[in-house]
């Protein structure tokens, strides 16, 4: 125990490189969390486990930035929502056409293409999808009529590239190509060179024409998805979820779990230990025996039992983690308070008739504060990794996507076996970085509080 003022600690801390690095990382993480909370709507994160929300994303797509390092470019996933709209009306026939321009510059075929729309019409309009390729060939993909309706109706549909009529239409135009179509999927034909079955680079224009007779037809939501194998900054997982969103939302959650658990357990352990040490005799004895009992409980098995039997809500989990967190700090705090209480000023305060609670809070606890701060910082990583571990076992709160849960999903879908490094690496690195920030801060503080280690 040494008497250092908070001023001195601040000065020493600024000098320590480690502390500065830790604080910097922590600040970056805090900024990330604030940005996440503000910019990403809470709904996306509540819909994390709802597959319907992620339907327009590709399955297990690699992050986009990988293309920078690749010689053979992987097709990016493209969601095109703003077509060029043309409207022509001749002799009572209304033609609405939407054109999507696509610059295809990759060395592999896309996974699929999907046209998603919702239209308002009456009667039975004709829908025609065609594509003009970079070499000038125009391929008709689909000609179909929408379901008949007497009055005005709204019709929504998704047209997939696996549609049988698209295949048939392409087969009819097979004389434009020099290879055999058998067993080739639609996207492998549309995006192929004419002489060999290799991707053709250049600008493609997809046109969607809707002909309505004597009636107004309108396409409201028009979306063309060209399914690629690369998507977003962090890629997607098996359930088509955008991993970037999961990782970003994990940051505030991890910070919350870590800080809540460590602050609560350090504060309660400190008060418990100081009280036991200050009171001494029987009280001390019983309180320390209780401490021993908690200390002897196997922590992780009990955490698992608790989360299975009682609740796996994230807030309850914080409480459980706290139960096992305060024990060590209570022991140290007790021995420290045993030393402090023999000092003259505590005796003096006692003789002046001050209340016990006042002596503890005003004269003993402030002496332990530097130590308390160091232990808060040091115990944060443990809390985060334990929570991540529980989530990894599948015992986490399913309504909050933590990093541990992303790793749990990665493990259940065999990400390691399938070489999906972008699903395994980032969550673990985030856990480690967060832990590292607190370890740095804690060690820097620890070196100041225990000058013996420095030398």
């Amino acid at each position, binding site marked *: 125990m040494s008497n250092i003022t908070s001023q001195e600690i601040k000065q020493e801390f600024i000098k320590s490189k480690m502390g500065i690095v830790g604080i910097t990382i922590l600040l970056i993480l805090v900024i990330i969390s604030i940005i996440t909370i503000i910019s990403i709507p809470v709904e996306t994160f509540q819909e994390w486990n709802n597959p319907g929300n992620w339907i327009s994303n590709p399955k297990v797509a690699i992050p986009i930035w990988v293309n920078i390092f690749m010689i053979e470019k992987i097709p990016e996933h493209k969601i095109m929502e703003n077509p060029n709209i043309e409207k022509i009306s001749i002799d009572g026939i209304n033609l609405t056409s939407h054109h999507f321009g696509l610059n295809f510059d990759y060395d592999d075929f896309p996974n699929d293409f999907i046209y998603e729309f919702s239209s308002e019409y009456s009667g039975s309009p004709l829908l025609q999808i065609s594509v003009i390729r970079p070499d000038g060939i125009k391929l008709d993909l689909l000609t179909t009529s929408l379901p008949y309706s007497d009055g005005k109706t709204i019709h929504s549909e998704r047209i997939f590239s696996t549609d049988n009529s698209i295949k048939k239409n392409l087969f009819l135009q097979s004389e434009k190509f020099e290879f055999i179509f058998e067993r080739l999927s639609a996207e492998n034909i549309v995006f192929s060179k004419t002489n060999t079955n290799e991707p053709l680079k250049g600008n493609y224009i997809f046109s969607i024409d809707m002909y309505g007779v004597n009636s107004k037809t309108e396409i409201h939501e028009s979306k063309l998805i060209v399914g690629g194998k690369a998507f977003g900054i962090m890629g997607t997982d098996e359930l088509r979820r955008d991993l970037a969103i999961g990782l970003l939302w994990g940051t505030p959650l991890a910070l919350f779990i870590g800080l809540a658990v460590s602050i609560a357990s350090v504060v309660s352990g400190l008060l418990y230990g100081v009280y036991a040490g200050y009171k001494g005799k029987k009280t001390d004895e019983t309180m320390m025996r209780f401490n*021993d*009992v908690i200390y*002897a*409980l*196997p*922590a*992780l*098995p*009990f955490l*698992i*039992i*608790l989360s*299975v*039997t*009682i609740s796996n809500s994230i807030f309850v989990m914080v409480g459980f983690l706290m139960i096992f967190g305060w024990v060590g700090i209570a022991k140290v705090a007790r021995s420290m308070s045993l030393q402090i209480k023999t000092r003259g000023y505590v005796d003096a305060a006692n003789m002046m008739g001050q209340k016990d609670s006042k002596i503890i809070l005003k004269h003993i606890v402030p002496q332990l504060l530097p130590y308390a701060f160091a232990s808060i910082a040091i115990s944060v*990583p443990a809390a985060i*990794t334990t929570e*991540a*571990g529980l989530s*990894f*076992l599948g015992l986490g709160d399913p309504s909050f996507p933590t990093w541990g849960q992303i*790793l749990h999903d*990665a*493990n259940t879908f065999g*990400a*390691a*076996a399938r*070489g999906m*490094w972008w699903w*395994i*690496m980032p*969550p*673990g690195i985030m*856990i*480690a970085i*967060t*832990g*590292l920030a*607190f*370890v*740095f801060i804690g*060690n820097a503080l620890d070196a100041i509080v225990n000058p*013996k*280690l420095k*030398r």
Partner: protein
Amino acid sequence: MFGVLMITLLITIALVGSNMDTILKQGVVFQVRAEITENPAIAQSFSSVNEFEGFVQNQIDQRIQALGLDEPWYSPQRIGVTMYKIMLLDFGNATFLTSDEGSSDVKDILFEKLPRTVLLFTTATIIISSIGIFLGAFSSSKVGSTIDRVTSSFAIISSSFPVWWIGMLMIFLFAFTWQIFPARATPDIPSSDPAYLLSLLYHMALPLITIVMIGFGSWAYLVRNFMVGIMQEDFIMAKKTIGIKEKKIIYTHALKNAAPPIVTILALSLSGSLGGAIITEAVFDWPGMGRLYFEAITVMDLPVIIGATYLLTVFFLISIFIADLLYGYFDPRVRTGQ
């Protein structure tokens, strides 16, 4: 100490007991219904539906009473019986899980899994601690040198990585990208085969490397910190001035003085290694205690949970006891009495 053990068990029973009862009761109901559907003659012998339902209910009640499930799990009688049985090391039969040979006796299951966990984690702990002690003592003699800095920063960095995540990475790298080690840690040949032991060791390599890699840094750091404290003591200074070689001072005099806390931590981590590896075992699919524990909790197999908790707590308490004795041996100041 015995009290601690009993309290631990009581808490376990209290936490799992009520769920377990519900599961068992449902099991009984299911069993009775199944028996009746298998034997249509019983159903035909009743004239009204009410009479039939009454008979079924009666059967269920009788069996529940026979199993002692009519009293709540917290009744002193049932807890007393359970506790008494545990003290005689009779854990009863597992409800769902079985050992590899098919025995459902909890004792068989536990003693089948325990050696495997000891093999993996105790080996790992011993390797970790010996590397750690040597490295820590070495870097404490050269505070501020490159080796010291590398050890310290490695310790700090490795301590913030979860072991199981490194495990996933290792599986990804060494089992799938470069196919050096098997991905699953369970050997695929029967245990009677003479090649079983070799295969087991081969399957053990990847988890062992992972655990050692993550563990030894923090050990070295811990030992270093103890040693740095001791190296500043007056008696070391005195020895230095007499002219005793630095190496001799570090490895005999200083290390002996740093021994008490090191031994305590070693004992605790040895016993902790028996149970604290639930997640690691799950990642590597190592068929030891940790995985057994996790499986038992997920299917709510009360006898196995109690047996495993009991065993872990016993080991933990014994190692605390041994650590205390050793502490007294290495540090005569803590000895009391005559």
